[in-house]
């Protein structure tokens, strides 16, 4: 037996011990070998394992340990050197690997531990997120509910629907048992139960508004938990077995239109609130959650807004209906007014025509009748007829004019005319009456008064005629002064400033009479229609009282002013008016040149085509006059009697030469008749020139008083006639050819 170097206790006595060691080693080996198998199996099964190579290392270590213990099995009995060698190798390897593994584990184990902590951390995080998500979901649901509710509420503008919908939706969203709305009564002292969700409520169930619980709720904009036993929450008969659910109340502000300031948000200065009470189902352990309370508050606000919108809309609808009604009424009124005006205009037009036609007939025939042979009584009668019908015609014209003036449909007919001539003509018309009454009329025209002006000649004539006529009418003695001038500065009324503009000027006419005068208190009434302030004595002088009113209207149309000054009764009075007239450019310049006009040489050009009418009973002189005028280039028509003259004369004739050879007034009548004929027309009257053999002043005066524009001494020389014609046509008046 060789001494073996293996260290093995040779204890033959301990066979039992050895047996046990043998068995343990065996099992250890098996375990050691099975561990890596298990590891491999489970790692294969698991998805992730980061340290594979550690496993390999560990596996190796285990396998070697197992191998070592397995080899140990042979060393219990005598064994050969090979076995020992293998054993040693195995042990050495095992040692190496175990050391390596141990070293490795130093690195690995902290890692593994940290993995664990991370896992913990992540789990916590996941739990937190879960919680939060739950919260968000709840909130979102709340929001959705509110939106839905709001949508429902705002989809209608009817107050009741709004409130009912609110309750219904709230009830549904929050799964409420009961939901009630208390509205303040008209007096504001009580809250009346207006709407409930489920239970029928007795009508007129009110609670006083001053309850502490109510004040508490109204004091804050938040939802307040109140006791289920408070009067507002006690809506149904209480039975013992019910455990009442929690109750929340919130105020609903009732906004008025006046709460909305222009640039501000509505201020809740109103004290009117409604109360909304919400009850959770009884016998449930539910509590009011914060988010539910928030939902309730939001809803309450929305309801307030919706209600106020509904109220505003109601208001505006009402206003609109009212306006529409008024509109319709106004339209109707306007149409009626138009119809009335049209009817009146038609009536006026008809009346105008229908009344004037017989009027004309009467006047014309009376005039003609006057011409015939009449006894004095007949003549008087005819004259009266004529006078009355003239008066009537004037009255008609006045009335028609006035009504046209009233509704503003009268327009001025502007034209160029000679202002100086106008004054003289008016005076000529008035002169006969004035002469009869022995009232001298003096005309004073200012030197700077333009001669040719633009304006409404006819109406201006009417005005002056009216004023001067009044002066004559109401004066019993004294004299009448007519002054015409250009006025520059302001007049009586301070708000009427007279500024002569470039092509316009203001004509002022003053008519002073020394007649009966006017009481200063009566002056304002003068210009009103139909008002006559005089006593009965003067009333007999006729007139409709329209004259001044019409004159005033005309003056106003001419952008002027008219007034009367009087120092009192018996002291006469002065009528003054200003009117605006245009200055005509033509022919005023020639007046302003101070050079005496050089009589032009053959002025045939001036008279070519000039239409004249020659009236002469004597055939020879008629022929001579005609020859004279024809030589000058005129177009001459001859007539041999005044009737024929009246018949033939027309607005085309610019001059009428009439032979006044016989003494007596009859011949001059033709002049008046021509005047008359042409006042009614719009056209300009032809110039009237008398041819007479008389040179005396009385003839001249007579001619002037009968409205003739000139007197010529027969026989007329050619040069004379030429001069006369040009003078006449330029100045429209001629008294110097004597």
């Amino acid at each position: 037996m060789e001494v073996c170097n293996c260290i093995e206790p040779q204890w033959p006595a301990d066979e039992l011990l050895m047996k046990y060691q043998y068995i343990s080693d065996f099992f250890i080996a098996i375990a050691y070998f099975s561990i890596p198998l298990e590891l491999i199996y489970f790692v294969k099964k698991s998805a992730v394992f980061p340290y594979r190579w550690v496993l390999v290392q560990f596996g190796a270590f285990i396998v070697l340990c197992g191998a070592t213990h397995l080899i140990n099995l042979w060393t219990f009995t005598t064994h050969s050197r090979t076995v020992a060698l293998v054993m040693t190798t195995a042990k050495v390897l095992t040692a190496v690997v175990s050391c390596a593994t141990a070293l490795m584990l130093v690195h690995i184990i902290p890692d593994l531990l940290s993995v664990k902590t991370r896992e913990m951390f992540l789990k916590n995080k996941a739990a937190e997120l879960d919680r939060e998500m739950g919260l968000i979901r709840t909130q979102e649901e709340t929001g959705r509910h509110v939106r839905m509710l709001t949508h429902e509420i705002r989809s209608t503008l009817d107050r009741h629907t709004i409130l009912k919908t609110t309750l219904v939706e709230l009830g549904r969203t929050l799964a409420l048992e009961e939901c009630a709305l208390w509205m303040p009564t008209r007096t504001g002292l009580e809250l009346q139960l207006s709407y409930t969700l489920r239970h029928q409520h007795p009508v007129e169930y009110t609670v006083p508004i001053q309850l502490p619980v109510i004040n508490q709720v109204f004091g804050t904009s938040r939802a307040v938990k109140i006791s289920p036993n408070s009067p507002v929450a006690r809506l149904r008969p209480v039975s013992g077995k019910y455990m009442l659910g929690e109750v929340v109340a919130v105020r609903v502000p009732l906004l008025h239109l006046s709460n909305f300031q222009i640039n501000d948000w509505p201020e809740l200065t109103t004290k009117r609130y409604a109360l909304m009470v919400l009850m959770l189902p009884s016998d449930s352990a539910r509590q009011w959650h914060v988010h539910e309370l928030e939902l309730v508050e939001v809803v309450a606000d929305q309801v307030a807004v919706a209600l106020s919108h509904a109220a505003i809309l109601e208001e505006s609808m009402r206003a609109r209906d009212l306006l529409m009604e008024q509109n319709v009424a106004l339209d109707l009124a306007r149409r009626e007014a138009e119809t009335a005006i049209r009817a009146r205009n038609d009536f006026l037009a008809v009346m105008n025509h229908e009344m004037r036609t017989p009027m004309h007939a009467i006047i014309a025939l009376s005039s003609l009748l006057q011409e015939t042979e009449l006894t004095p009584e007949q003549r008087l009668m005819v004259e009266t007829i004529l006078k009355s019908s003239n008066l009537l015609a004037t009255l008609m014209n006045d009335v028609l004019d006035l009504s046209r003036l009233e509704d503003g449909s009268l327009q001025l007919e502007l034209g160029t005319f000679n202002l100086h001539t106008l004054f003289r003509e008016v005076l000529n018309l008035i002169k006969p009456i004035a002469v009869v009454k022995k009232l001298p009329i003096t005309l004073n025209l200012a030197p700077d008064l333009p001669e040719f002006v633009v304006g409404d000649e006819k109406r201006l004539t009417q005005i002056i005629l009216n004023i001067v006529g009044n002066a004559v009418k109401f004066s019993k003695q004294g004299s009448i002064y007519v002054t015409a001038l250009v006025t520059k500065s302001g007049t009586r009324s301070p708000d009427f400033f007279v500024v002569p503009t470039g092509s316009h000027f203001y004509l002022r006419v003053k008519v002073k009479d020394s007649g009966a005068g006017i009481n200063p208190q009566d002056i304002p009434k003068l210009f009103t229609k139909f008002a006559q302030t005089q006593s009965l004595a003067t009333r007999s002088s006729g007139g409709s009282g329209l004259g001044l009113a019409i004159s005033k209207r005309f003056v106003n149309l001419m952008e002027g002013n008219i007034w009367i000054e009087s120092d009192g009764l018996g002291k006469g009075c002065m009528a003054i008016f200003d009117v605006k007239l245009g200055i005509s450019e033509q022919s005023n310049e020639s007046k302003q040149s101070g050079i005496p006009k050089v009589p032009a040489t053959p002025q045939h050009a001036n008279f070519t085509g000039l239409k004249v009418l020659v009236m002469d009973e004597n055939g020879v002189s008629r022929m001579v006059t005609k020859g004279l005028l024809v030589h000058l280039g005129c177009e001459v028509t001859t007539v041999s009697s005044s009737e024929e003259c009246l018949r033939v004369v027309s607005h085309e004739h610019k001059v009428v030469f009439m032979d006044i050879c016989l003494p007596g007034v009859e011949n001059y009548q033709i002049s008046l008749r021509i005047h008359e004929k042409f006042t009614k027309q719009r056209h300009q009257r032809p110039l009237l020139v008398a041819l007479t053999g008389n040179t005396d002043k009385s003839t001249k005066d007579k001619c002037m008083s009968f409205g003739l524009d000139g007197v010529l001494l027969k026989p007329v020389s050619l040069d004379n006639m030429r001069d006369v014609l040009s003078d006449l046509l330029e100045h429209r008046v001629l008294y110097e050819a004597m």
Partner: protein
Amino acid sequence: MEKRQFRDYTISLYHQGFLDDQFTELKKLQDECSPDFVAEVVSLFFEDCEKLISNMARALDQTGNVDYKLVGSSVHQLKGSSSSVGAKRVKGLCVTLKECCDSQNYEGCVRCLQQVDIEYKSLKGKLQDLFNLEQQIVQAGGRIPQVDI
């Protein structure tokens, strides 16, 4: 030669008082448009004269019942016509006749009327001569001379 004659004759008529300035004026009115103007007027005048004179004569013949108004108006007309034509002498006689008529002087009227009759006939003859002279001149191809009085 005729022109000279014409001129002399015209001047003599004026000097003798048969015609006055009015006749000159009438002459002025005669132009190309109315070449016979004077002749027309003058013949009309003479016709008028005849008519009026015969009217007056008839009226005056009603001795005892003379319509002086008619005479008056006729003489007035005649006066007008004669003054239009420039028959100076006739016009003067008319004035006298008018006065007689106004004063209803029968003798005076008759006498005046006779004178008027003589006068107008004499004037008529003279004017006729004048026109003949004018015609001669015109036919000879000359122009009627302007006579300045």
